[in-house]
């Protein structure tokens, strides 16, 4: 297992490098650069030239990329400079459109907020989806099942794009129960990402979490129901009942654990979808998370910020997929990784 994890991590390094280079080259080949505009005015040519030189945008593409990876080592070629700066050191460079801020600072400020939103949404989808799916499966072909199934299809079909503005309109503007937008928690966070669970945080978090998490809980509910229905018909469930176990123990200990295996497989794509979802939801609710920076930095052509944020997302997905695969093996002893 340990060797498997190490190999997976080693294998993902060239993939991440390839992705970084693709983004790097793609962004630089798009017409328009980071210094075309300052606010509404365009900058004088001499200023643009100087800025381009400062950020080494006048160098050949390969040199810029090597500089991005290893920092000033590309100039000095002194082995003592190797790994002093650049990506190898975890340095994502200076942001181009937010003067004086490094990409690392921006990520450190915004990532915890996106993480809070994402974790809340995943928690909601698991805590709501699994019980709902279980109840629907246990009451198969009753009105409870039909209602839950129908609600789940409905939930899957309403995009966050629609859910967000609708929730804002109903609960914030019409009923005035909850705040319309922004995020209630501010750094510093406990352990870097756990906010103080005060009223400001909770009241601001409810609508974005619902907007993001509803579709996922519906998806998990459908999957849990389908998978549990299949497992319940297995022989070992009959055996468990036959030896006189209480129904509750049969369901929870024998059926549910096995029925969660397909649910875990969907968690990988789900995390990817949560990332996409945070773009939408952060945009709609004006939440200062990483998704907002990503969308903005593309419009601004802020090369270093785009690269940094893309890389963080990619690393996150790689880690998430690895965790999913490990959980998968833990739930299903028939699966072994070499």
């Amino acid at each position: 297992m340990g060797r498997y994890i190490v190999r997976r991590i080693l294998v993902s390094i060239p993939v991440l490098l390839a992705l970084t280079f693709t983004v790097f080259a793609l962004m630089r080949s798009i017409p328009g650069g980071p210094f075309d505009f300052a606010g509404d005015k365009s900058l004088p040519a001499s200023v643009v030239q100087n800025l381009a030189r400062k950020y080494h945008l006048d160098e050949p593409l390969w040199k810029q990329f090597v500089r991005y990876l290893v920092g000033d080592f590309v100039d000095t070629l002194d082995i003592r400079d190797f790994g002093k700066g650049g990506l190898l050191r975890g340095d994502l460079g200076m942001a181009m459109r937010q003067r004086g801020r490094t990409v690392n600072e921006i990520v450190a400020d915004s990532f915890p907020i996106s993480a809070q939103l994402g974790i809340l949404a995943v928690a909601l989808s698991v805590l709501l989806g699994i019980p709902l799916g279980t109840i629907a499966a246990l009451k198969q072909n009753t009105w409870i099942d039909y209602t839950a199934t129908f609600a789940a299809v409905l939930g899957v079909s309403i995009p966050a794009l629609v859910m967000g503005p609708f929730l804002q309109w109903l609960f914030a503007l019409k009923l005035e129960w909850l705040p319309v937008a922004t995020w209630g928690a501010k750094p510093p966070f406990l352990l870097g990402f756990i906010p103080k669970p005060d009223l400001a945080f909770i009241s601001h978090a409810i609508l974005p979490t619902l907007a993001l998490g509803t579709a996922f809980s519906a998806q998990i509910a459908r999957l849990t129901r389908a998978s549990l229905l299949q497992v319940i018909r297995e022989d070992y469930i009959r055996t468990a009942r036959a030896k006189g176990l209480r129904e509750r123990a049969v369901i929870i200990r024998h059926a549910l654990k096995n029925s969660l295996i397909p649910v875990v497989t969907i968690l990988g794509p789900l995390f990817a979808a949560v990332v996409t979802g945070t773009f939408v939801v952060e945009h709609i609710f004006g939440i200062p998370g990483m998704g907002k920076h990503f969308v903005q930095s593309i419009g601004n052509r802020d090369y270093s910020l785009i690269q940094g944020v893309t890389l963080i997302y990619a690393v996150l997905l790689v880690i998430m997929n690895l965790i999913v695969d490990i959980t998968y093996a833990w739930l299903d002893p028939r699966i072994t990784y070499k």
Partner: protein
Amino acid sequence: MAVAEVTRELVVPVRRERGLWADAFYRLLGNRLAVAAGIYIILLVLTAVLADVIAPYDFGVTHLKDNYAPMGTKYWLGADDLGRDIFSRVVYGARVSIAVAIVAATVSLIIGITYGLISGYLGGRADEFMMRVVDFIYGLPLIIVVILLQVYFKALARRGEAAGLVGVAIRVDVAFGGLFFVFVAMGALNWIGMARIARGQVLSLKEKEFIEAARMVGASFPRIVFRHLLPNILGACIVQETLQIPGYIMLEAFLSFIGLGVNPPTPSWGIMIQEGYQALRSYPHVLFPPAIALSLTVLAFNFLGDGLRDAFDPRLRGAR
């Protein structure tokens, strides 16, 4: 539901002379939700094709005096910030959603099936390598790549005149409201699931006797693929693709929402939701028509996809 159906299947003998497709089609007709969804989608396609006839106004014509006009006889669903008729714009917006569904799904089907077929048929080392590649791509944040590609294509199209094939491509792109490239990109990046399914099907099929028999009598590789393998895996692949279509439609709406989608004034439901969202505080009626249209369409494709899956493989009823 299941009980009733089981008894029916027991009582009425299945007519064996029907083929797999006809069988699936009749089973689909028995699923009322899927039929309703299918009818909705057919109507939507007709709406998209006949938008010029159905819409009372042109999608771009502004009536500045009537900005934010409420629902009424002049504008059935009201007017937006520039006094454009919302009903007409929703009708024209169907074009973009249908186009993304068709283009992205076709591209994804072709690439995925080809890849999966080759991988599964070759087997062994080649198969292992090709599936490793799929695993790599699976781990990437494809949505980000799609967004970046879209920025790239948009800038390319804005630069205007280009000769030869690129020029033709740009003109096609403009005809699609600036979205053609990104539709292709969506499909071209979303074939992973399709490839896996096609491969799995081929792996289980190629050991079957009828393939072996075909090989024995000297059928060529293309004949085995097109005559024997493809017809048998196509059902599962189409089901899978239908289930992916809601994702394409939502992704297009999202791109348009954040301003990376269609070029204004071409209406897309995503861009209209963005406009409605801006006016939410005072004029919520701008938001609801495109929001409902988008949700209904996604719902319809979900119901149809579920129905198709049950029809092709009744054992999977309720799965996913």
